[in-house]
């Protein structure tokens, strides 16, 4: 089973819902994005931000109010769902309860009038692929959640869709299984090389599975990029907060030279990539990830390559491989994570400590 990927393009798409007795709500507001052939793109965002609505418009379950959607070269905006050649995996799987596993998986093939012999072959092939050989005659209610999930995936991919769409497919599984299944989904998607849009509100899942992530907020795309790009260079406080934990600390630009600028921080200074429009005196937010911060004894002096600030430990969460602290510094709270506590020891709540940050670890919150 080989599928050469198809490109998906969403072009200035909007969807508004009218709500009784209230103003209309723009569930999706002028969203544009491109998913390259074979790529897995994740729509990530908080509840109600329009992920599902976007996905359902791509599938054809909802009609956009504005904008166009292209699969490959074809404008599918007006095309009925059943002619789009997609595979959709639903959050609750939506297996046909009156059909066996075999019949569920064969459904799309039968609808396409694939001859019986081929149906048998392709169904057993795909059940093999998802690790469910021999399950043909079971009914959905005789399967565990994880097995139902696999059947749903098998049913979606067996028709060799041009696009694979997932709406929070793992959210009904327990935490361990979720981690295992996302690895399997990722492997399967790479193997089949089907262009995929994947919706989730789980940041770990998105980072683990995606080629690129589109972070959504209130119906708009806040930022698109690889997991690493989003983590290293978030372009808004929202994205910074949503992808991992973050400390946003205000600094003042001291000097700009040759694409670098020096920013005053905690009585010292850090040098970061220059931001357009920044001149000496400009105030900006610096991103300090908790794991880049280190707790040191109160008496430590700032070194040449890092900056230091003094504060009081306000809370401590011991998590085994790491310890999370909040440290009060001049009225603000800093999140600090330290690893390997068994080896390095823990600091008590109420203790006066120094917090250091390597000058190289700070980044400006870029707005462009």
């Amino acid at each position: 089973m080989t599928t050469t990927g198809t490109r998906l393009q969403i072009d200035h798409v909007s969807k508004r819902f009218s709500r009784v007795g209230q103003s209309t709500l723009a569930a999706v507001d002028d969203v544009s994005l491109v998913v390259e052939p074979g790529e897995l793109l994740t729509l990530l965002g908080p509840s109600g931000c329009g992920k599902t609505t976007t996905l359902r418009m791509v599938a054809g379950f909802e009609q956009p109010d504005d904008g166009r959607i292209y699969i490959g070269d074809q404008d599918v905006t007006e095309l009925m769902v059943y002619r789009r050649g997609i595979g959709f995996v639903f959050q609750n799987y939506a297996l046909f309860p009156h059909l066996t596993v075999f019949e569920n998986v064969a459904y799309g093939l039968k609808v396409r009038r694939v001859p019986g012999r081929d149906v048998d072959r392709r169904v057993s092939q795909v059940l093999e692929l998802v690790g469910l050989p021999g399950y043909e005659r079971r009914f959905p209610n005789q399967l565990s959640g994880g097995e139902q999930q696999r059947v749903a995936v098998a049913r979606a991919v067996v028709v060799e869709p041009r696009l694979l769409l997932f709406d929070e497919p793992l959210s009904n599984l327990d935490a361990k299984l979720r981690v295992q299944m996302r690895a399997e989904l990722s492997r399967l998607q790479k193997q089949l090389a089907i262009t995929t849009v994947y919706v989730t509100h789980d940041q770990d899942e998105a980072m683990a599975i995606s080629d690129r992530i589109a972070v959504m907020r209130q119906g708009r795309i806040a930022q698109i990029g690889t997991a690493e790009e989003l983590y290293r260079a978030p372009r808004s406080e929202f994205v910074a907060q949503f992808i991992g934990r973050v400390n946003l600390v205000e600094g003042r630009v001291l000097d700009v030279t040759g694409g670098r600028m020096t920013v005053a921080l905690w009585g010292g200074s850090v040098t970061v990539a220059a931001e357009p429009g920044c001149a000496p005196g400009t105030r900006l937010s610096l991103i300090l990830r908790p794991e880049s911060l280190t707790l040191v004894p109160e008496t430590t002096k700032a070194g040449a390559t890092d900056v230091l600030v003094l504060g009081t430990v306000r809370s401590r969460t011991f998590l085994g491989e790491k310890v999370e602290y909040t440290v009060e510094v001049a009225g603000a709270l800093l999140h600090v994570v330290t690893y390997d506590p068994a080896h390095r020891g823990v600091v008590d709540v109420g203790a006066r400590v120094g917090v250091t940050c390597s000058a190289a670890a700070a980044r400006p919150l870029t707005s462009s």
Partner: protein
Amino acid sequence: MRRPLRDPVLLPAVLLVWAAVALFVLYPLVRLLILTFWNEGPSLDAVTGLVRDWTNRSALINSLALAVLVGGAGTALGFAFALLTVRANLPGWARRAIDAVVLLPLISPPFTAAIALIFALGPRGLISYHVFGLTKVNIYGLWGTLLSETLTYFPVAYLTLKAVIANIDPNLEDSAFSLGARRWRVFRTVTLPLATPGVANAFLLVSAASLADFATPLILAGTKFPVLPTQAFLQITGLYDMRGGAALCFLLLVPALAIFIGQRQWIERRGGSFVTVTGKVGATTRVKSLSPAAVVALGLVCGLVVTLVLICYLLIAAASLVRGLGADNTLSFAHYAHVFSGGLKAVRDTLIIAVLCMPIGGLFAVVLGFLVARTQFPGRRALEFAAMMNYALPGTIVGIAYLLAFNDPPLALTGTAFILVVCYVFRYSLAGTRATTAVLAQIDPAIEEASASLGARRDVTFRRVVLPLVRPALLAGMTVLFIRAMTAISATIFLVSLDWSLVTVRILEGITNLELGQASAFSMLVIALVYLAVAVASFAMRRLNAGSLGQAGTLLGG
């Protein structure tokens, strides 16, 4: 999905259903209204003429009063039965026995209770005269009609209220108990208020049934207590006054429509929770049971009613097996011999029509339910409402409207099997439609979307996914159609002919010719056939893994 008119399957389906509803529901009613209000120009004289006449004026008042009384009595009885079966921790067999007896009046041909009451309490009644030696009991008039209709229609209230009481969230009552309230107080302050919407709904349902009842008053009301349905019938069949009949229909239509709309609004505001069938019926815990005294009191009342119903049916059975019950009590199969000779044609006709109704009406019900529950199109609510009209309106109105609309070319359909089937399909599919929407409410729409995403057109999805899933609803809907087609009379009495006759019409003839034994034999046959159908249906329902007689019974109640 939101632009249905682009859907190549939905549009024709909607148009087809609309066309059928327009022709067989709206058009006849329009003809009825035109005849009432058009006399070489708009005119109220048909209605004003009626109101000037004492009989018609009192028919209106009597009908309304009777509806309120039967509604009140039936709801009270239904509530008592519902409390007893849901809250008294009765053993399973007792509950099943109560359900079986209570189901009887719901599935009997009309007249059954009326004939039985004549046997029991009539001038030479077995109970009034032979047991108590009373000679002055007058079963004809308000009291007889009220008694007979209450016995016939309280099961409707019972089935509604049973579901309502069983579905009251147990946590609410438990928390009242935990706050220190005693049983009676909890009942008064929590249970009863929570059940009130259900009680109102039951009252409206029973009142509507009474308002529409044509058979009982025809036998028991007598000339001193005229009611609207029988007056309209007599106006047309006795006096050949079509305009007068139409105008009487209009007088009946107004309160019937008011009740129907009121009841609909009520249900809608509560999200339809009173029509949906739930599996929770019968769930009960000790702490919420009734006090022993209450159980005894309810048991007495319900026991009395159950006995009365049983006596009625025993009397009918007895009457069908002797020469003349009360006069000549020798065993005789003459009545049955007649049923299977002279009466055979009516039996055969009725069966043919009932069987024809099942697939046609069943499919119509499921398609309509699907359109209403799962699709969006302009005029969807209007279609739903229009499709319910013939169910909601008294049969007499529907029958007279059909007579007006389909008696002359090009639509000279009265007297044909076709029009009888059509009449039943549009009158009695609603149970199937409701069952379908109830089943669909429990099926995630994502299942249909999954089918679409796999490339299935909407008709393929309907055939391969929806239809198999709503099989229980289809079955229930077809069962109701069969039962109603076997037992209905009020509308179709205007539509029968020499070619196509009905058992219920033969029962009526038996009564008017004072051949009560024959009428009883016909009734017994119908009851047997219908019970058989219910038994087969509930067996099939169990095979479908989707419920039991209890559920079918609930569906039949609608």
